[in-house]
């Protein structure tokens, strides 16, 4: 598919960077779709890798056992993941905050363990023999498609309703928004794109193993969303790109850090939260505590003399109430 474009790209990208770019593209799709749920709708979802797994195994099984073609399998992967999104979303999205996080986390683990124990998926040995049909042009198209659809969606009647739910769920429902239905829709759309990303993943790596879709993958995706900026689509593109490429870079530059990737992620997130609490591309002007602290320090030194003149009346007031 798109072989001419693929040939063109391969002529000036070496195979190592080609592979890195495919991974980045797949992660961008996952991060964008997760951002719709977490960043725009404000629902903490810790099981996004599971929807990716649904898509990956759907495509993998259709390709190896049913002989379905690439595009058909990719579409089926997206649709089946969307169905999973509805099934998981309907009961869990009535929950809020921590409870939703735990429920989605549980779903992810249940699915992983199921894949590990089914015969048809190859269990712990994984699913082999998927043809390599994902290439960079297809990934780029899929990224563009995801980005444009989500951008259009968040700038619409429905997108405004999702953001309203994030901002104040009670006010949103009082303004006529069917909050449960819209939360499930947001979840379903995100699952659809995660399924597509999973299918591209399957057709790229040609081998699937349940451990590729564990809880830590969901956490890494969440880290990419937060790093780039909650509720910022361009931020997700940047977040996924940086956080996919950096470990690759570190592997050659500083392999010791690359092995401790998750420690490094944690540190990076802490730094981002201090310096830019709304993510790298966060647009909100809400100040982080560091900025507030610095501003306070500045004003304290500036008002030093004024503040000292205000101290005496306060201390006499305090003494007046004393036992004397």
């Amino acid at each position, binding site marked *: 598919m798109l072989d001419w474009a693929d040939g063109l790209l391969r002529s000036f990208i070496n195979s190592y960077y080609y592979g890195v770019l495919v991974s980045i593209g797949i992660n961008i799709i996952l991060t964008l779709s997760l951002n719709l749920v977490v960043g725009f709708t404000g629902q903490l979802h810790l099981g996004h890798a599971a929807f990716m797994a649904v898509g990956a195994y759907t495509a993998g099984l259709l390709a190896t056992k049913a002989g379905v073609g690439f595009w058909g399998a990719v579409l089926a992967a997206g649709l089946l993941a969307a169905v999973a999104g509805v099934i998981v979303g309907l009961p869990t999205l009535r929950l809020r905050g921590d409870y939703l996080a735990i429920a989605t986390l549980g779903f992810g683990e249940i699915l992983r363990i199921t894949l590990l124990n089914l015969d048809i998926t190859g269990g712990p040995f994984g699913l082999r023999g998927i043809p390599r049909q994902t290439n960079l042009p297809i990934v780029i198209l899929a990224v563009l498609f995801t980005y444009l*659809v989500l951008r*259009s*969606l968040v700038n*619409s*009647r*429905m*997108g*405004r*309703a999702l*953001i*309203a739910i994030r*901002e*104040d769920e*009670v*006010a*949103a*429902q*009082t*303004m*006529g*928004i*069917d*909050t449960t239905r819209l939360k499930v*829709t947001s979840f379903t759309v995100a699952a659809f794109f995660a399924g597509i990303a999973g299918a591209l993943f399957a057709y790229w790596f040609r081998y699937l193993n349940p451990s590729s879709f564990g809880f830590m993958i969901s956490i890494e995706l969440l880290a990419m969303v937060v790093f780039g900026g909650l*509720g910022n689509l361009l931020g997700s593109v940047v977040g996924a790109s940086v956080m996919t490429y950096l470990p690759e870079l570190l592997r050659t530059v500083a392999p010791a850090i690359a092995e401790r990737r998750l420690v490094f992620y944690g540190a990076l997130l802490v730094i981002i939260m201090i310096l830019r609490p709304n993510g790298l591309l966060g647009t*909100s002007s809400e100040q982080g505590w560091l900025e507030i602290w610095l501003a306070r320090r500045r004003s304290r030194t500036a008002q030093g003399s004024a503040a000292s003149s205000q101290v005496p009346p306060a201390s006499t007031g305090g003494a007046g109430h004393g036992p004397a």
Partner: protein
Amino acid sequence: MALLEVEGLTMEFGGLRAVDSVDFQVHEGEILSIIGPNGAGKTTVFNVLTGIYHPTRGEIVFRGQRLNDLKPHHITALGIARTFQNIRLFREMSVWENVVVGAHTRLKSGFFSSIFKGPATRREERAARERAYKHLEFVGLKGLETTKARQLPYGAQRRLEIARALAAEPRLLLLDEPAAGMNAGETEELMSLIRKLKEQNITVLLIEHDMRMVMDISERIVVLDHGRKIAEGTPAEVRRHEAVIAAYLGASARAGG
């Protein structure tokens, strides 16, 4: 027939009876106030009317339709909109977007037309934004359309809540302490705004603590105390009502007077 009929309304939370067999009617085109001391159950009545809570007992009928078991978004679609005592705006959204969200039930574009915006959807979006700007002008927020809601001063936030509620095109507007925290000048402006609403044929049900405003603007007043209705009538009648005086000043005031 009354626009809204409330009969024997009771709302219990576990063992606590917040609203106890309350009856009242709201007539088309009037301004009716609900007053009462803190904890009298006024806001609970609003929350039941808008479907946030479902009543334990009693009947709520709006334009011939029973509201008891409806969800909030259905009730909004039927023509009841409200503001909140503790301002609940969509803080990170712009002022005009807040108002367009208020018009959610009046817009049609569904899931696929939200993504693939055809000419009809674009027309609808443009018209919705224009109407939002008109509502903002109506409440006196012209020129602030693209500001973020959280950046507005307090009084303007209260008026934005009214504009957002108006965008739902309600027949009945519930205002929960709209004058709270306002100075005399702002309250005056708010009163003329409420009178303008009446001219637009919107019926207003008002909860308010500012007695000067309540006595001035209301045509009728319902007084609640400890979840029960203790009086109903014109401002002049309510002002003289013994139970009302007792509820507000304590029984000793009546004994002393």
